[in-house]
């Protein structure tokens, strides 16, 4: 197994774990954590293709990874603030109680 294949496999495992968490957990914070994990998996792909890809020499992959980390930081801050606002409104972070259906 080449290093690129190993990196991509680890990244796809991380993506699958994050997706499974985002789809199955009922707490909004953990759903956001699952989304963060998926984003990190994409970041690992950028680094892996920068390191082992055919078009090396340019540091485009790393630059994109840096920007991606910045966007992820903004996303996490706004997402967690939204969770706080929703919690103040409804007093719950359980997704199954936030669907708007009568309980």
């Amino acid at each position, binding site marked *: *197994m*080449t*290093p*690129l*294949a*190993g990196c*991509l*496999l*680890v990244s*796809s495992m*991380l*993506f699958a*774990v*994050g*997706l*499974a*968490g985002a*789809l*199955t*957990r009922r*707490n909004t*914070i*953990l759903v*956001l*954590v699952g989304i*963060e*994990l998926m984003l*990190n998996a994409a*970041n*690992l792909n950028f*680094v*892996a293709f920068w*390191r*082992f*890809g*055919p078009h*090396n*020499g340019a*540091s485009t992959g*790393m630059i994109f*990874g*840096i*920007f991606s*980390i*910045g*966007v*992820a*930081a*903004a996303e*996490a*801050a*706004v997402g*967690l*603030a939204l969770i*706080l*606002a929703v*919690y*103040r409104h409804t007093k719950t*972070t*359980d997704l199954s109680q936030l669907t708007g259906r009568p309980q």
Partner: protein
Amino acid sequence: MSLMSATFFILAAITLVGACAAMMLRGLVHCALAVAIAFAGLGTLYLNLGAQFLGLAQLLVYVGAIAVLIVFVILLTRGGDSDSPPLSRAALPITGLLVAACIFAVLAWAVFHSFAVHSAVPLAAPATVRELGTVLMADYVLPLEVIGLMLTAALIGAAIIAMREKQATQ
């Protein structure tokens, strides 16, 4: 075609175990700790791959800021009293796990059947912080400014969103 190092396997195992624990543990604080471990494992994985600046940025931003932010939100929303089971009783978890497993199978199939994986190419030289800064300031000035603006807007927006209820009650 060089084989992979043992450190890569160890770091990948730490990352994946941390991610799985973050998605499976019952207590929310334990989940936050596990996801911090997963982020730290990813950062060291970047360092192992030769991306020094990105690895340190990952450690600073994710372990230093986002994990702490998650812990703050868990404590502010009193997440410790999570009596409900992590997986609901409906058929939804089975569907979610099945979808994730299918997507992983498709991704692994694509990885093993791609031509780029099997072509041996010389390694890229590890980018030093100096040349990274030069590239960032010369070729990517506009995206840098845009992301600075976006981070400022996100900071102000997050503060306003999290503060609004308190102002309304006063």
